[in-house]
């Protein structure tokens, strides 16, 4: 089930302060003071769209159309390129999923895997990113085909300085699939 843009906006507004809390808590507070009575509340959101509204960073109240966009090019392991427009504030993992680019995000952006590993092709733009945290570095250590300009796609948030960045997709991820199986985005 999906909501209209307006309804999503108001939901996101009310729940923006809950972004980091557990989805169970989110469920409880989204309606009038009725507890544990699933029947009388509005039917719960499908997991994926709840996640999407949670994963936006601060300017999540405004709609996606109003935000400035930067262009990002993804280059896959065969060399074919796909250029997309990414609104400022969206992570590269989100952007890839929205544009059907094959970037796995097994842990859905919670810094618990290395499957959204991307490689920066421009060193200068790589230097403009903030330093990776220890947790990100720990996950990067496990990534297949790690390079000096590797980062996790879920930690790269679009900002104006990164306009025109080119990201290469590594030839494989740690989720072994030598038979060519590609897991669907979660």
């Amino acid at each position: 089930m999906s909501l209209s843009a307006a309804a999503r906006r108001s939901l996101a507004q009310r729940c923006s302060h809950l972004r980091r809390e557990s989805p169970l808590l989110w469920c409880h507070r989204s309606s009038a003071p009725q507890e544990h009575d699933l029947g009388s509340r509005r039917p719960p959101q499908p997991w994926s769209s709840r996640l999407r509204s949670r994963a936006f960073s601060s300017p999540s109240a405004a709609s996606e159309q109003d935000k400035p966009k930067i262009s990002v090019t993804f280059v896959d392991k065969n060399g074919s390129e796909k250029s997309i427009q990414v609104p400022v504030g969206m992570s590269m993992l989100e952007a890839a999923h929205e544009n059907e680019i094959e970037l796995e995000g097994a842990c859905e952006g919670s810094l618990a895997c290395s499957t959204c590993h991307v490689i920066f092709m421009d060193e200068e733009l790589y230097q403009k990113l903030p330093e990776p945290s220890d947790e990100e570095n720990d996950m990067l250590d496990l990534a297949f085909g790690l390079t000096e300009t590797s980062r996790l796609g879920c930690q790269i948030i679009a900002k104006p300085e990164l306009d025109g960045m080119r990201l290469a997709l590594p030839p494989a991820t740690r989720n072994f699939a030598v038979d060519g199986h590609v897991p669907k985005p979660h």
Partner: protein
Amino acid sequence: MQATSPVDPRVLDAMIPYYLHQFGNPHSRTHLYGWESDEAVEKAREQVAALIGADAKEIIFTSGATESNNIALKGVMHFYREKKKHAITTQTEHKCVLDSCRHLQQEGFEVTYLPVKKDGLIDLGELKAAIRPDTAIVSVMTVNNEIGVVQPVEEIGKLCREHKVFFHTDGAQAAGKIPINVNDMKIDLMSLSGHKIYGPKGVGALYLRRRPRVRVEAQMSGGGQERGIRSGTVATPLAVGMGAACDIALKEMAYDEEHIKALQKRLYDGLTAKLQAVVVNGSMEHRYAGNLNLSFACVEGESLLMGLKEVAVSSGSACTSASLEPSYVLRALGVDEDMAHTSIRFGIGRFTTVEEIDRAIELTVTQVEKLREMSPLWEMVKDGVDLKSIQWTQH
């Protein structure tokens, strides 16, 4: 105690349960066997880290210092190969370091092998001159396994940090014997060995700095164990043994040092009181007390070893004991070939007793005197002939 050491009974006690009833695979995440095995490995990791002043997350268990050295050198050079093509090491390193460097040279990297001074220490000026913009790593062992000299690691670390080059040190003979702090000494990678510090054989560790992060290309591919750097099931009993050994070493380091220093003095004084022309190879000041490498003029090392069968010594090191070449370490010190052939390495450790030292002195003196009695060279030296002036005929 250079080639190896006996397992401390306390270490064996810690290991046995993990062979018998607590035999789980530490990577099994779904049951108690796995959890308790994992807990034991993590505790061992902390114990190893505490010995060198590191964080537990920076320790990777391997099969020994040889593997750790391989990962350190080949791993760093391969990972940074786009921009960095040069490595620096010394001529007195352990064979696994030198062989890895030669292998890297085959692959197209460049390696500088720094010479050492007569006392076995490297010259810091030469090291500074050798560092280039494309140098990725400097590898200098902390304590040499053949001659026991201690390199100036703090100064080397400082120099490497200034030039933004990774500093790797082979600490197999040093960790647990002399105090080490990887932060004070600015060490980025360090290899450790279990069986040199009264732990089991078949286990070692690699310290990999996290801030600033050192990246290596894994040499073992697989399931991504040990932070993706060393795939393969971690041998819980061995890791626990190494942890226990490190823990004991940390607590008893000062006591062991006193004991070993006293025995070293006893051995050296005992030998030099009765024998002439005994030369110590390597610096006496910058030395780990448990190693004494001596050359006895005009006595052939191998024949002396045959006579000293009761004493477990070696000429050169264990890994060179099968080859006929005299030790390359002694050659690097500038020791003449004839003296290099006469060298004997005595190792003293936690479990060495005074009786053993006295017996070693007695046997060595007897053998050396007997061999010198038979030696025409010794006669000539006693008569004052300079051996170097003799023209030997070939036959």
